[in-house]
């Protein structure tokens, strides 16, 4: 996986406010400009520019053959992408919403994830599957699923999720440049989050699989990613009032998982809470807590706790705030890290 791709491109601009959606679009554009084998395909990605406008302008700039409105069939889109990749192209597929990627699961699990392995390395598939995912935008049924646990349970897939504007750009470029398939989960409710950012001089990006410490702290570690990162940063600020100095680690990808950064942090702080909005049972937090426990057992002052969405189908929008883990639930977990008092 090359980091060169991330820094390629003309450097002329100055930093100005950009949204995550714009940074993603710019990453697609720059990837297409840098590599003629990069093709974008999906529902409404052409003329409309995608329902979130991430692909806006690509069809105009690169033509319908490079940015293609497909028939409405997710299995067909991803299946066709497999064939395109077999023939040397680098398809970037857009699934319109998290829950509409499910018809493509057969292709994803049986083929995209396994082709390298099935062919003893002869036929890797450089496919990026972009999935707008997660809740918090008031979407009706089937528009707010957090599906990362399904993907991370499938060996052969990278599972990447940006939480900042800079990472949206850098990680997407890295994903497209990757010779392995990447499920790229775009937190919908952060699409309109902004940062001062220069598309022409993007911050250098680490390869997929490195977590970063977004806020250093001494008394406990919040381990999180994607849409829950802003929640954790806010909780960390709020917790200072209670005397807690929380460290916040942004995983940036679940596969590969950065054990070193996470374990180093927990060894420093001795306490950890995993925060994500997908359901807790069978969710990413269980895996993460187990890994942390295995590596940091002797450093832990309390069990690794999880703050997650409830184990229910994603609720109707008027009820979603009760389901999504917010600052209060994170703070409650932090309070429970006073393990001696509780046990």
């Amino acid at each position: 996986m090359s980091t060169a791709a991330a820094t390629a491109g003309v450097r002329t601009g100055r930093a100005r406010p950009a949204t995550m959606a714009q940074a993603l679009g710019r990453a697609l554009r720059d990837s297409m400009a840098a590599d003629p084998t990069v093709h974008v395909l999906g529902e409404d990605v052409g003329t409309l520019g995608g329902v979130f406008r991430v692909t806006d302008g690509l069809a105009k700039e690169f033509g319908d053959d490079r940015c293609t409105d497909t028939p409405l069939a997710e299995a067909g889109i991803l299946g066709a992408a497999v064939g395109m990749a077999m023939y040397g192209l680098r398809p970037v597929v857009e699934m319109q919403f998290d829950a509409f990627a499910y018809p493509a699961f057969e292709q994803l699990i049986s083929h995209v994830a396994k082709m390298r392995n099935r062919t003893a390395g002869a036929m890797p598939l450089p496919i990026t599957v972009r999935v707008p995912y997660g809740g918090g935008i008031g979407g009706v049924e089937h528009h707010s699923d957090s599906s990362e646990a399904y993907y991370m349970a499938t060996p052969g897939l990278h599972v990447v999720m940006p939480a900042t504007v800079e990472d949206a750009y850098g990680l997407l470029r890295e994903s497209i440049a990757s010779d392995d398939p990447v499920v790229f989960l775009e937190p919908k409710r952060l699409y309109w989050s902004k940062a001062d950012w220069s598309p022409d001089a993007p911050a250098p990006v680490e390869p997929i699989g490195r977590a970063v410490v977004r806020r250093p702290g001494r008394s406990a570690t919040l381990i999180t990613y994607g849409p829950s990162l802003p929640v954790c940063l806010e909780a960390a600020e709020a917790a200072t009032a209670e005397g807690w100095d929380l460290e916040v680690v942004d995983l940036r990808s679940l596969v590969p998982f950065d054990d070193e950064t996470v374990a180093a942090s927990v060894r420093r702080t001795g306490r950890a809470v995993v925060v994500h909005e997908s359901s807790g049972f069978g969710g990413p937090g269980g895996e993460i807590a187990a890994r942390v426990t295995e590596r940091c057992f002797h450093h832990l002052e309390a069990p690794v706790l999880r703050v997650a969405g409830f184990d229910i189908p994603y609720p109707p929008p008027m009820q979603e705030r009760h389901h999504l883990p917010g600052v209060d639930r994170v703070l409650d977990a932090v309070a429970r890290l006073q393990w001696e008092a509780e046990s």
Partner: protein
Amino acid sequence: MTVQELPGAAAYRPTPPPAWKPLTDPAPLLPDPEPFRVLGTDAAAGVDPELLLRLYAELVRGRRYNAQATALTKQGRLAVYPSSTGQEACEIAAALVLEDRDWLFPSYRDTLAAVARGLDPVEALTLLRGDRHTGYDPREHRIAPLCTPLATQLPHAVGLAHAARLKGDDVVALAMVGDGGTSEGDFHEALNFAAVWRAPVVFLVQNNGFAISVPLAKQTAAPSLAHKAVGYGMPGRLVDGNDAAAVHQVLSEAVARARRGEGPTLVEAVTYRMEAHTNADDATRYRGDGDVEAWRAHDPIRLLERELTGRGLLDEDGIGTVREAAERMAEGLREQMNADPVLDPMDLFAHVYEEQTGQLREQAARLRGELEAEQESGAEEGR
């Protein structure tokens, strides 16, 4: 309700489906290349005036419903609304051709069909308002939940119709899907199952020209969507989707055929989506006003109004009465939708399983505690 308590479950005796004879002559399956029309042709004279008047009243009411629901999105009373303005003839005919015992399988755009079938206008909107996923008991109304993932309701319709048949019940299922939805694998699998099982199903494709921004030409290379039926071994019918009498007739024939045990039919109704995909969509990005204007001349209400007034079955007074009734419906809808729905957050855990797991009971207790604390601290509900 457990499975054993379902109506008719005790009497359930599976019987094999009727023997399948492959069709040797595909000719009767092929659709006529011209969409079938009634209004403005000699055939219109043969249609029961009562039916025409009923269709008219429902169309006007339906359009008013669409307008009211769209207005409610602007006031934030609905999260989103996919209007079926321009497509009312399909919606209404789909509801009216069914008997009470039959089933309707609507997509997310088909609120109007559900309301025309008798569903309470507010209950039909809960999905789009966002207070619950399905605001009605599907079994009570024989309307499956409005379906958001495209085409996934079609195999359900086939299965239900098949099951009814096995039980010896005289039930037909009518399933609705958009032109874009016909590209999904589920559409093809549903058609194939239906034909092989000779299930009493009618598939109604509302071809409204676009799947969000994607025009039909990028969706299919077939001469028509109705042609898709032939390869599966069922007849395909093409009908003018803005001609309420024609849609009603074609669907009635398809339902009758299904009821006679002759198997499924695929009906393509050619219509046009006059509004954007939903209130959140910007249609100017992918189509010009001119296209919309051209279809205005072929508006389903106008077509029917012309027929009825031309034959002296309807006058200004009659039109006024129909509009007034529609206005009253809209008023009632507005009033009810302006009241905040009463929500119980504990409902989140109520219907995940028949019996709550220990895990869910624990989570419910935690939420209850949070809510009580919120109330105690006088914190305002809803951050």
